[in-house]
């Protein structure tokens, strides 16, 4: 299995390190030719405005959009979730539109409001997942095909899955907890049935 981690900008090395811990081959993606033969893609956290411009400049936006339409599994964390969305408030570039979610950027405020919170996420088991939210986005709306995997106590949706697409507002790549990445790998290998089918 080979997973490509988008390396235009952001915390891609952290995702690659976690994949290596899970004994999965992982490589950074900066150009379309590097997309060949992948079993899945991760779009990391970073600055969504910066990542999207570099993706456009080097023709990754359409290529990744097409791969998502063809059913390639994609995980997006934070900025990656912003890019997977169909609608984003406050981003001047059109996102990939792969998931039927509306996302608000910097939804909790500025850096001073960045926070950690223990998340209950039943698909990962009983133990709470350490959520690290950095200038994080949130899911404002999701259509009926989208399964919300985690919410903050007030009800705000912060992780979701739609078929083989997985998104989180927080940063599993900054934790020692491998369960979220394992969940994505299970989607890639087909060990997790597509939600709501």
């Amino acid at each position, binding site marked *: 299995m080979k997973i490509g981690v988008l*390396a235009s*900008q952001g*915390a891609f090395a952290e995702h690659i390190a976690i994949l290596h811990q899970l004994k999965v081959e992982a490589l950074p993606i900066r150009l379309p030719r590097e997309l060949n033969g992948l079993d899945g893609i991760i779009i990391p956290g*970073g600055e969504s405005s*910066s990542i999207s411009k*570099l993706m456009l400049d080097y023709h990754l936006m359409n290529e990744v959009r097409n791969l998502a339409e063809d059913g390639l599994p994609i995980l997006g964390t934070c900025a990656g979730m912003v890019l997977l969305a169909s609608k984003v408030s406050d981003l001047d570039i059109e996102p990939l539109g792969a998931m039927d979610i509306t996302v608000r950027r910097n939804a909790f405020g*500025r*850096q001073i409001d*960045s926070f950690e919170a223990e998340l209950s996420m039943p698909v990962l088991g009983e133990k709470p997942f350490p959520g*690290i939210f950095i200038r994080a986005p949130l899911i404002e709306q999701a259509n009926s095909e989208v399964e919300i995997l985690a919410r903050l106590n007030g009800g705000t949706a912060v992780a979701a899955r739609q078929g083989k697409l997985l998104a989180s507002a927080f940063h599993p790549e900054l934790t020692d907890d491998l369960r979220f990445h394992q969940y994505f790998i299970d989607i890639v290998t087909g060990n997790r049935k597509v939600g709501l089918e």
Partner: protein
Amino acid sequence: MEQSEEEEMETGTWKVKAGLAQMLKGGVIMDVINAEQAKIAQEAGACAVMALERVPADIRADGGVARMADPTIIEAIMKAVSIPVMAKCRIGHFVEAQALQALGVDFIDESEVLTPADESHHIWKHDFKVPFVCGCRDLGEALRRIGEGAAMIRTKGEAGTGNIVEAVRHMRAVMDGIHKLANTSQDELMALAKEMGAPFELVAEIHKAGILPVVNFAAGGVATPADAALMMQLGAEGVFVGSGIFKSSNPEVRARAIVKATTHFQDPEIIAEVSKNLGEAMSGLDIKQIPTEELLAPRGW
């Protein structure tokens, strides 16, 4: 659902402070002095901007005491862009830092580019919820700053010169220090910590991990796409560009080219391509022609 969201949300933790620096990796942070420049930087793909009253080249030319920028300017820049906004305070001036935190800036640079307020002590940065970045010339200086709570490190270089030589010197010194620590034996660590003037715990941590515990950017003299890629190949995880963009003849094009070169730093064809037709770079300064007392890098310790 009776519990409010606030009860479970812990802000200002080390993880979210160091984590924001991790999100900036592979990116370019650009000095800007007004909302218009900030928008140009964001449009070019900057991952953050540094809000200033004057860029380092002008601070150098003007002389006098350089202080924290007028909050009006910082607020106008925060309003103009959606990417993170950083601002500088003087070395040791913790009240300027308190004011910047109150304004809501996303990162504070305790910077040698401004006139130091304290020649003996840097700010105790653990006390703040907002993360700090600090300059360094070698690993010992980097670890002293991390010990005080810096969540990100950058080379000092020699700001406002458009000359990369000092940034190269400082990055090589940091990297050499890390390699030396990683390859030394345990019983020599205490002596090395003493020699470097660095906290022993951090020395031991680097000996074990072989990497810095925080993100390390290049700064101080980056003027071209090739400069940015050079620093990345030497081990920088991202780049600050100060005067290099808005003191050049075509800031929009140069900013975009430096962003691309930072991402594709290992791809000589792309570096060559983006280096074409950029117009005049900022006029540079030979470090040897700057009087010693006007050098910025020796400020702080």
